[in-house]
């Protein structure tokens, strides 16, 4: 966690942040938006030769602010862009998994553009499916409507038979 990072870790977070900023286009991150280092952890595997394989997994996120045309949100929950980077122990990038938001930085990369658009569509249809099944929607005033997604994400909701855990539609 960035907030409780030791001095050594905070240096690593800073370096990772610099790396992400410098290579934003390759990581399919939007150079026009701040990047947050959301997490970094080591991962230990046994490789195909039976040897210990140490990798580092970094999570980078971007959250366009309200008012920004790239901002996508519903019911108090914001759709973020994010990239997970897996580094080998010598610091080389092994894998990049992207979850982009649409933006001019994806021009020229049709697959990423399509992925970004389908994420936005998927987000809105998920919200619509929950709205359709959730009886609370019906009796909600404007204020509750504005934070409905946030409230559905509560721990207690999991025990109340709310539709977030059983979408068949």
């Amino acid at each position, binding site marked *: 966690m960035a907030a409780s990072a030791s001095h050594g870790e905070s240096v690593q977070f800073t370096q990772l942040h610099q790396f992400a900023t410098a290579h934003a286009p390759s990581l399919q991150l939007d150079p026009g938006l701040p990047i947050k280092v959301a997490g970094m952890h080591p991962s230990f595997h046994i490789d195909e030769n039976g040897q210990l394989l140490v990798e580092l997994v970094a999570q980078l996120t971007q959250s366009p602010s309200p008012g920004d045309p790239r901002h996508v949100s519903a019911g108090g929950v914001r759709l973020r862009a994010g990239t997970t980077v897996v580094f080998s122990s010598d610091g080389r990038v092994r894998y990049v998994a992207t979850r982009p938001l649409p933006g001019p930085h994806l021009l020229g990369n049709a697959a990423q553009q399509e992925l970004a658009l389908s994420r936005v569509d998927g987000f809105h249809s998920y919200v619509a499916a929950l*709205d*359709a*099944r*959730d*009886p*609370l*929607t*019906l*009796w*909600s*005033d*404007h204020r*509750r*409507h504005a934070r409905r997604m946030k*409230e559905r994400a*509560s721990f*207690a909701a999991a*025990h*109340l*038979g*709310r539709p977030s855990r059983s979408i068949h539609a």
Partner: protein
Amino acid sequence: MPDSLRIRLYDVGFGDCFLVEFPRHAEAPFRVLVDCGAHRSGYPRPGWKPEHAVRAILDDLAEGGHDEPSLDVVVATHRHQDHVSGFDSRLWRDVAVGEVWMPWTENPDDPEATAVRERQSRLALGLQMAFEDPAFPARTGDPEAVAALRALAANSLTNESAMRTLHRGFRGSPQRRFLAARDAGPLTPAGCPGLAVHVLGPSRDIDVIREMDPPGGQSFLRFLDAGTRLGSGAPTEGADAGPFSRNFRISPAEHESGQRHGPAASPEIKAAAAGTMMAADFAAAVSLDKAINGTSLMLMFAFRGAYLLFPGDAQWGTWEAALRDPTTRDLLERTTFYKIGHHGSHNATPVEFVEKVLSSSAPMWGAVASVRPVASWPEIPRAPMLDALRTRAERIVRSDQPEAGIAGTEVRPGIGIDFHVPAAG
């Protein structure tokens, strides 16, 4: 023989009240009253009472010089106030009724029905007592939200006099029928040749019955127990059965008021705790409302090519069962007149019904929403749902926005709207 049948909507605001008249050869029409109730928060105008709708119905029944008002069938789709409160009137004593149709959950001789009703009534009472507790508005701190919550819960409170009329009232000795979704084929009332009434809900399916049992409401029953104890004045049985000694306990009232949370609890924590309780109150009231809607009768009247769909306030469970069954789905496709479910709310008219079942190339004759907007519930009626229905119906009429000059309809100022739905002569 006329080539149409008449449906009279009585404007009851946020509620339902319809008189359906099936023409008969050389006889007065066969008359079916579907519901008569209004939500207290959504009366059509100041000073209006449900009894005004009853008087309008009686005036209409007297039409053509009939001095003894009579109805062939009275349908009560479910026991919510906004569907039955009008039956709490002495005027019904003078009305002769042939049959009264209610959902199977109203059958006093059916143990399963009794269990469903008791669970729902106990929670309704528990909620009412919780929301009437003096500490309740203090901890929520939002008078509007408190009023909206009380109004929502009040709709589920059993209206004993109205239910008494339905179960034991009216002139004559009407036969009571308690209906469930039928595989046995439609009802064919003897007095009305050509009429077949398909009962599409509520089902007796175990999943549907489960939906009639509101989840998450157990904690509110303590108010009920507290009320019972206060009433009896008897010492509390098992008062010392708890895991902690009396010194470590606070009373429910102290807990509700938040007075004993102690100095350690910051205002933020208190606000968060109050917010959580408010969310639980809201969820319990809504789940009860949904559970009672789940008992709603869903009827399709088929008469000489006209298919009139009255789903009451049927919810997803009933609709899903109806849409899944191929025969019922075929029937739904033929709908020519649709009483929009639950005053135009989003979860009482499934998207699948509008988009996949109703035809856009051959739209139905018409659909009507009996509603009046209530500020606390801006999602009723739901505008996108009504817009979607507009592509499937030649006319969509809202009781709160009557428009003169729509072919086949007639506005009766201060009373309601008449619909002349085509039916083969």
